């Protein structure tokens, strides 16, 4: 067990993945000597060389598009998109090529590409540096979407994402990058599949009254809300995988509590919460004692940072929602 922040945990996970498989290469802007603007790849170029950790020209479509070719050649590219708001120039290559190539080829080729994207707000950044675009990718067939909530999960799931033969969009909650946690580095020595299944949700705190489904940056927020909520007992479910979503774990929690609040930073309309509300609303029509309630960002462009706190769900809004569904 070591205490690491999430940056260091992902760094350690990347290192393990590179040690395990020589076909794993890292590719992105400023990830070499600089170690990435968040230092997630710090030291890896030095240790693995310039052919395993490559600084890319400043062009996201180029980065993703060449990764497709690298995958066709048998490589396992791990890409870094510098910030959430800069993934869009690569969107075409992601949705029309990365996501569809395996299906297009009737299975003859796989696309084991991991696209790491620091995402979300709360760090006082300028425009394009605080977005939560996960719904675009979760709506795209052929992709998987993962997001870790703490250093231990990050350490494990980044390795599992890389080992997965499907393309994985890996969203890193940047405002939690510097949160520390215990990481058991020994856990993964042998079999990536033997440890926790990355496609399963995790009940990170048990409770009896209301299930709170959340992921990435909002897990800590919801845990704090659960801690602070005196009247209502919250069960916090960290979805971890946004595509596919583990409805088994989430559903069994809802069956127990009969109430669900979904929390995310992304705008409400068409967000991950919509799909969850639709699914849970359908499957647990009679079990639910209150409508599925969403606590999310608003349907506006991410605001100027001095008012971002009003955009982002916080402890109070989560508790308020839990109380509302209890009162319903």
């Amino acid at each position, binding site marked *: 067990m070591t205490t690491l922040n999430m940056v260091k945990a992902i760094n350690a996970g990347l290192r393990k993945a590179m040690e395990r498989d020589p076909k794993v290469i890292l590719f992105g802007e400023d990830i070499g000597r600089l170690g990435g603007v968040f230092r997630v790849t710090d030291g890896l170029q030095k240790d693995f060389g310039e052919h395993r950790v490559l600084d890319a020209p400043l062009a996201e479509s180029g980065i993703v598009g*060449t990764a497709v070719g690298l*995958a066709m050649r048998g490589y396992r590219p791990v890409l870094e998109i510098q910030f959430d708001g800069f993934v869009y120039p690569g969107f075409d290559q992601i949705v029309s090529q990365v996501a569809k190539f*395996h299906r297009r080829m009737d299975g003859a080729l796989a696309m*084991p590409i991991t696209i790491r994207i620091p995402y979300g707000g709360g760090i006082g950044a300028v425009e394009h540096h605080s977005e939560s675009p996960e719904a675009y990718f979760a709506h795209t067939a052929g992709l998987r979407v993962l997001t870790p909530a703490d250093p231990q999960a990050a350490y494990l799931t980044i390795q599992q994402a890389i080992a997965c033969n*499907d393309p994985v969009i890996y969203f890193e909650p940047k405002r939690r990058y510097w949160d520390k946690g215990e990481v058991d580095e020994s856990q993964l020595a042998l079999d990536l599949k033997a440890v926790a299944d990355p496609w399963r949700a995790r009940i990170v705190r048990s409770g009896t009254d209301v299930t709170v489904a959340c992921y990435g940056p909002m897990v800590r927020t919801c845990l704090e809300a659960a801690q602070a909520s005196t009247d209502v007992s919250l069960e916090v479910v960290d979805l971890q995988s946004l595509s596919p979503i583990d409805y088994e774990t989430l559903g069994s929690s809802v069956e127990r509590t009969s109430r669900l609040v979904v929390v995310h930073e992304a705008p409400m309309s068409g967000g991950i919460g919509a799909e969850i509300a639709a699914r849970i609303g359908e499957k647990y029509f009679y079990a639910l004692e209150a409508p599925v309630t969403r606590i999310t960002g608003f349907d506006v462009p991410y605001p100027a940072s001095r008012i971002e706190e009003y955009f982002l769900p916080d402890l109070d809004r989560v508790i308020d929602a839990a109380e509302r569904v209890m009162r319903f």
Partner: protein
Amino acid sequence: MVDERVGAVQLLTPEGQRVSHPEYDINLSDAEFRGLYRDMVLVRRIDTEATALQRQGELGLWAPCLGQEAAQVGSARAMAPNDFAFPTFREHGVTWCRGVAPLDMLAMLRGVSNGGWDPNVHRCGPYSIVIGAQVLHGVGYAMGVQFDGAEDVAVTYFGDGAMAQGDVNEAFVFAASFSAPVVFFCQNNQWAISQPRDRQSNIQIYERAAGFGFPGVQVDGNDVLAVMAVTRVALDRARTGNGPTLIEAFTYRMGAHTTSDDPTRYRLAGELETWRLRDPIQRLQVYLSRQGIADRSYFDQIEQEGDELAERIRDDVRAMVPPTPESMFEHVYAEPHARMDEQRSEMLEYLSSFEDAAG
């Protein structure tokens, strides 16, 4: 338009005259010469047959390569077996040379697959539709070759229209930056659907390369010998670690953009006439005859081979049955995926409800 080609590498005039070029030359055995002729004739035959099959409703669409046979066959026959081609939807000459079965070329356009063959077997990617996308794939593949320390080369195909796309220009940047072993093979067939070449660029296409830091060369795309010679040099350059080359094959799309297109809306008939005089197959035929490399009986034999091939395609195309409905859930993911299982079951259950009703 002939004037524009001044400077384009040519080894065989439209009249079938062998001419020399200060930098490029080619020496082929008689069998190789005949092989190029055969390739072009058979590709044209497949192309014509497919166009006919589309008219008969057997294919949803077809994008004819009529007129571009020399550019495609010349470049693809220059490739080594391990080199990898990244074609667009019009490169039937390329897929033919990579050993893709004619029926497999039709799979996508018959709507029975979105691919059609195993890229690893043929070392040839699928027919790429999103303009420019596959050019980046070729560069990435070439980067992988480089990391492997191997000597393969990626050949990426695209059209004059594609020169406008960001992806193609980014591909130039990445290839130059990594000095990747890739050949950019642009068939300038003068048209991007209805848009003439000068909508995308007001200077010659091959000139784009210099500004990215690698050589560009223009070749008479209807001259299979020149195309082969120029491609060989570019492949060699890439193979020996000297990076990318842009080849502009100056040619002409003699048919419609696709079978859905009506080119009379945007181009003059006279243009086609001019280009008929530069037909890539005819000029090689004249040359082979004059040189005594092949005679009428050989040409007749290829003609007949073409007839047989066309007949086989006609017969077999109807046998290309659609995949099962539930196959749409296969290979979406390479690893188990709950949602696929769930939706497949739902579909099968729904479909079986009809059987029950019928039975």
